[in-house]
């Protein structure tokens, strides 16, 4: 069945948390050996992220009258995943708004932006620094700024200021793969504290420092041989779900 090391939902072997090197190696193997396409992977991750968001915050549970969600997208792959996530949330009848201050010049990612625009998803031209405005306008914020491939060290502008704003908001933050501003292995005690972490494919080491309410695994596509090779010991996904709570 789907995970040789777990039976009827019980973990026998502990779940593996990946180092930066391992996370990069897995992605490289998927792209070069398994010939997954990058757009394909981003679509899989973006869709699974949207499923995770809806699992934790189903439409009827949102406090505001309108199911508004703010999606903050960074310049690289994590941002592109955020764009795809926003698009699927729109299909699920949420009302996402995107803040994408530095658009990727990568032609692969440009189309993701067009798809969102053509689906009438608004793009903010600036992020209010007035935290109350964000608290009032949105039910949740999705942090798709920086991922496991982020350069270690200080976060560059405009993201440092954006993260400083996000640190103060009171509505839930959902981080995709890695909380932005955290080192992928050691985390960041000064950084944002998301409520929800959606680990893509397999969790990274910094997830051990995650203190929020929900940690989910999303993206049910990793070949069994990859799972075995890196001893991921992923839990069993229920039915045909692509998301599982950890």
């Amino acid at each position, binding site marked *: 069945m789907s995970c040789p090391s777990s039976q009827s939902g019980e973990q026998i072997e502990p779940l593996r948390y990946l180092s930066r090197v391992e996370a990069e190696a897995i992605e490289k193997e998927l792209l070069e050996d398994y*010939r997954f396409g990058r757009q394909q992977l981003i679509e899989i991750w973006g869709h699974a992220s949207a499923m995770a968001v809806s699992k934790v915050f189903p439409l009827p549970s949102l406090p505001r009258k309108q199911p508004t969600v703010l999606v903050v997208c960074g310049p690289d792959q994590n941002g592109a995943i955020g764009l795809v996530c926003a698009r699927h949330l729109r299909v699920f009848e949420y009302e996402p708004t995107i803040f994408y201050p530095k658009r990727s010049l990568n032609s692969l990612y440009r189309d993701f932006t067009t798809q969102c625009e053509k689906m009438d998803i608004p793009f903010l031209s600036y992020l209010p620094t007035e935290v109350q405005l964000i608290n009032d306008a949105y039910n949740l914020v999705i942090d798709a700024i920086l991922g496991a491939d982020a350069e270690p060290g200080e976060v560059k502008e405009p993201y440092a200021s954006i993260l400083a704003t996000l640190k103060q908001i009171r509505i839930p933050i959902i981080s995709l793969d890695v909380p932005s501003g955290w080192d992928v292995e050691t985390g960041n005690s000064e950084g944002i504290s998301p409520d929800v972490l959606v680990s893509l494919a397999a969790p990274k080491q910094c997830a051990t420092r995650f203190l929020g309410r929900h940690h989910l695994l999303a993206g049910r596509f990793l070949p069994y041989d990859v799972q075995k090779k890196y001893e991921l010991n992923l839990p069993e996904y229920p039915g045909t779900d692509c998301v599982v709570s950890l």
Partner: protein
Amino acid sequence: RLLGARRGGAERGWMSGLRALLGLGLLVSSGSRLVAAAGGGRCPARRGPPAAAAWGRSASAMQSPGRSGVKFLSQEEAQAIDQELFTEYKFSVDQLMELAGLSCATAIAKAYPPSSFPNSPPTVLIVCGPGNNGGDGLVCARHLKMFGYEPTVHYPKRPGKALFEGLTTQCQKMDIPFLSEFPSEATLIDELYGLVVDAIFGFSFKGAVREPFGSILRTLEQVTVPIASIDIPSGWDVEKGNPDSIQPDMLISLTAPKKAAQHFAGRYHFLGGRFVPMALQQKYSLHLPPYPKTDCVLQLP
């Protein structure tokens, strides 16, 4: 629509209509459709329970039982919508094929859960054609593997494009076997597999069936295990159907059903490919019923 009622109150009218229908006993759950008597590709002996009705947020409660009110597309309309998704909306074939294949695997898992198979693990034969329908089949095979099925692929004519080569490699590296020859006897297929997925021809199909697919389809007409066709039962005219070709047990219509689906007489008709933007749905008056919650498939009456 349920969401409208929840939010605005303007649609409250439909809820009392719904109660009235319930009271009159006009709302029925989706029992299994009667399987047509003659022909191949059906399994008269294995009539399992119907797939769980995907009523979810009262999708079909608003429509009369029988026909969903959904539009059935002509071949031209299907091609136009496809074109618009790629040229106007800038979707890539990679993206949509991944979502389409996932829908197919999900629908199959709903209609034919592993427990319904005589063998364990549940074995599935996926026959992939030379175009995009075949690509959908490759993606479907991979997701079926993740869902715990044991897929085997037959892919006799492969386009030399990176997309299809990539999808093939993904399957092969996931230990999904590729048959070099199609089983010559229908009885062999019946023995080895609990289900056949027809991913040969899709909505672009026109004209005569070229080999080796003619022979393959003739063999499939004789199998008794269920056949699930992706988008269009292969060998059928996309609008008029074909009573002399395979008669599948399941049809997974992608984005919207085509006119051929009006001739479909199998047990399970699912809609998949939940990515058509609302503006496009409205432009072509698709009248798609709402998908339940975040499901990527919807069972049609």
